[in-house]
């Protein structure tokens, strides 16, 4: 899938651009490069509808002079001179940030599990076989079930970074992902569920998300009548339902720049208890096999594992080099430095601040779903939500909708509810009585990074509004 010389080619491109920066007499510069290749299949109406392959990539150039920075990106390294000039022009028009310099070279141990050689050897035929297996599995689980949408794909990315400060690093990561929208359209009722699995390592031929998609399309059929009055009630959110909301609100609130700029609901609360006292939040940039982990962050600083909230108490925050220098220079904080939390969206953007592989754990451990239902007694299970991206990361407030919701009474599932609103303030809900499940799943993110979260039972702070 990936050409043998992919890393060499982009590393040479970085050197070429770096040499041009030196020739221009630029004090500090940094060049990043990404080149990705992959195969993917689209599935529609129970069949593979399209097979695609290809590659893309480019270079990003950051230049710094006297604390002023400029950035530009391009596709072709051999025509970098205009882009360098553009970045310089921007730098010279930008305000100086006192103390801002590009990070120095330091040691960074490799992180295991980010590249699976088996994925590199996969071709379109392998994906077609996997698609066959998935479609067969869905039909075998429920003859009424159809994969109405989704797809699967494998990819490999060669990346490199080179800077005037001696940072020079390159490597290959792989990915394998699969997602399916399973619908059951029978007896004048259509139910559906989208589920997916992805990771750096080769997935099972039929990953667990397949059975889960069929299960949720099945169990949400035949809605029961419930009291339509809005009610404040305990809610058990599955990992899949909880992660999008959590990722929209919580990691963002822990960015150092937002904390010191009063843009976080946890601003001014460093050292204080902000979550239930059994809960801890950890950003692990070195997680083995982590979807967002890497030996170095987006500006070449060695990645690290950092506890941000320890047993409920806010003890840390996430910083990149520039954000730290800027907030110190502007007097919002006396001291801040990079925590290895620079993230990039690719070659088209300069590094910002964000999380990598983010976890929430409880010192009380995890509970089975049966145990959580027993503790909840009366309430709801919510498995997915619509509108998580509309949650307010500044306040933690959210108001979303769900069509995969089950009514629970006396610890037993009574049946599905057709549709309901779910609202509350996530920061407040997580600061009261919270119990975690024992099955951590990996989900994507609306901000940066990947979420590693179990089912979460929130006993207070949430409102259900049945349709």
């Amino acid at each position, binding site marked *: 899938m990936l050409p043998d010389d992919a890393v060499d080619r982009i590393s040479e491109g970085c050197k070429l651009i770096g040499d041009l920066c030196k020739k221009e007499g630029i004090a500090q510069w940094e060049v990043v490069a990404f080149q990705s290749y992959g195969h993917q299949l689209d599935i529609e109406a129970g069949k593979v509808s399209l097979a695609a392959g290809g590659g893309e990539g480019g270079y990003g150039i950051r230049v710094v002079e006297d604390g002023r920075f400029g950035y530009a*990106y391009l596709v072709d390294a051999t025509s970098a001179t205009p882009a360098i000039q553009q970045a310089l022009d921007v730098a010279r028009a930008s305000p100086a940030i006192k103390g801002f310099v590009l990070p120095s070279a330091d040691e960074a141990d490799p992180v295991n599990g980010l590249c699976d050689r088996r994925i590199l050897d996969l071709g379109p035929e392998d994906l077609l076989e996997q698609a066959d297996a998935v479609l067969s599995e869905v039909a075998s689980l429920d003859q009424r079930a159809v994969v109405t949408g989704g797809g699967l794909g494998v990819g490999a990315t060669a990346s490199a970074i080179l800077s005037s400060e001696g940072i020079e690093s390159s490597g290959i990561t792989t990915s394998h992902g699969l997602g399916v929208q399973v619908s059951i359209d029978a007896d004048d009722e259509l139910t*559906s569920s989208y589920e997916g699995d992805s990771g750096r390592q080769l997935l099972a031929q039929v990953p667990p998300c397949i059975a889960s998609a069929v299960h949720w399309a099945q169990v949400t059929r035949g809605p029961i009548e419930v009291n339509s009055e809005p009610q404040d009630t305990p809610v058990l959110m599955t990992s899949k339902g909880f992660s999008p909301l959590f990722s929209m609100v919580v990691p963002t609130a822990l960015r150092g720049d937002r904390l010191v700029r009063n843009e976080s609901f946890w601003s001014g609360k460093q050292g204080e208890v902000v979550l239930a006292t059994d809960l801890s939040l950890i950003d692990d940039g070195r997680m083995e096999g982590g979807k967002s982990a890497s030996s170095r962050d987006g500006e070449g600083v060695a990645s690290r594992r950092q506890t941000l909230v320890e047993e409920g108490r806010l003890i840390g925050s996430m910083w990149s080099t520039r954000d730290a220098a800027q907030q110190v220079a502007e007097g919002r904080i006396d001291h801040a430095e990079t925590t290895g939390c620079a993230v990039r969206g690719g070659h088209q953007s300069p590094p910002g601040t964000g999380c990598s592989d983010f976890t929430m754990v409880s010192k009380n451990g995890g509970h089975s779903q049966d145990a959580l239902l027993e503790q909840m007694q009366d309430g709801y299970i919510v498995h997915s939500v619509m509108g998580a991206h509309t949650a307010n990361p500044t306040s933690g407030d959210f*108001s979303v909708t769900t069509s995969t919701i089950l009514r629970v009474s006396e610890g037993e599932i009574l049946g599905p509810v057709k549709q309901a609103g779910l609202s509350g303030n996530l920061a407040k809900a997580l600061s009261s009585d919270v119990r975690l499940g024992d099955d951590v799943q990996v989900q994507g993110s609306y901000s940066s990074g990947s979420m590693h979260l179990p089912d979460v039972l929130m006993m207070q702070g949430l409102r259900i509004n049945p349709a």
Partner: protein
Amino acid sequence: MSASPNDDRSFGTGRYLQQTKIQAALDHAQDLGASYAEVRLMAITDSTVAVRDGKLERAIPGQDIGVTMRILADGAWGVHSTTDILSLPGQVESTVKLAKAVAARRASKDRPVALAEVPIFDDEVHWRPKKDVRNTDLDTKLHHLMTLHDSAAEDDRIVSVTCGWHDEHLHTELMTSEGMNRTWSFQRSLINATVTGRDGGDVVSYRTRHGGEGGLEVIESCDLGELGRSAQIATLRLLKSERAPSGKLPLVADRDLTGVYIHEALGHPCEADLVAAGDSCLDGKLGQAIGNSIVTVVDDPTMRGGYGAHPIDDEGLDTREKCLIKNGVLTEYLNHRETAHHFGITPNAGARAQDGLHHPLVRMSNTLIQGGTHNDLDELIEDISYGVYACGSRGGQVDTGRGSFQFAAQEAWLIENGELTKPLKDVSVSGLTLQILKDVDGLTQDARLAAPGFCGKGQTVPVGDGGPIMRISEALVG
């Protein structure tokens, strides 16, 4: 990696694709058994600028280029996308093979993919802006951003204002095995602000946007001082707002929210690729009354100035207005050539791709409900004893198969006895498409596009949404 255009700056004369080589590649695909092949290139020259608290945060000039080859062989698609334009002819054989491998797995019950016939053009179409945004220097962009910033920041309770600018010049070339050979270009420009307010422990944020198809004139047409002041006032109001009541209530939506509503609730289920996949609640409902007779909805990419406007769709068809609902009756799906053939209907140029590296999907453009008979907001709310007036959009989402949707408002007011009373925050609205279209019972006369937006469907494309102020007799408000 890439070829260079003959003339990057002018509208009309620059070409990236080497036509002789691409034509040979298309011919080669047909020699290998392809029934159709196309090569579509998109080159984007863009600029992103951000100002935070009155200081330049970042300015990023960029150039992107991507090309996608789509080959139909034995009734199935094979696709190859790359930033390495010159490598494309070397991928013809593997892409034909890919398509045939997909076709070989097709079950006997499944129909092979075929394309509806379309007129063939060999031309260039360029929507020239009044002021080419590529000629706008950084100082000018900063001037506009600072105008917006300064007007939004004028209060001690405003703790942060972040303003953003994005402009792009989009140049597309399409060559097909049918002889289509079109080049088109246009521009988009956008400015936005996110305002954060704090009062004690309460933190709120409000965002505002202005933009559309066109160059610098799009930004210059906006009173940015007023836009900023409105955002500041709304932010301060949110600090004093109460949480919205929950339950089934009469809802009045401003044109921003009306636009998002119609985009999510109706537009997506109208996309023919979702209908064909069995993932739309509107499957089989063409010609049926699905809404109140006052509801007429159009999707119109030819509406110049709208953020979703474009002259030609990504299969090379001239764009045109589509009437999705006429007086409550579902009249048309949005389609592309494949789904037009599937349903035996006329292609209506609904194919859009995010960029040169993505294949076209059925997408919306500028979607709006047409105006009704009510004069103004006062007339719409005068007989509501208890309800909610919701304004501005924080986005929405839809489950097209189940036909359920959600959208969130930036702010709202409680309606009591025909009057707007308390300001509210954190209002979201949800419902079922097939129910709520029937519950639209009032529309003001003045329909127009609202703030620009973005639509995600695996790929992200800019869209315009809007309409008049709309009343829904009962909606689930949270």
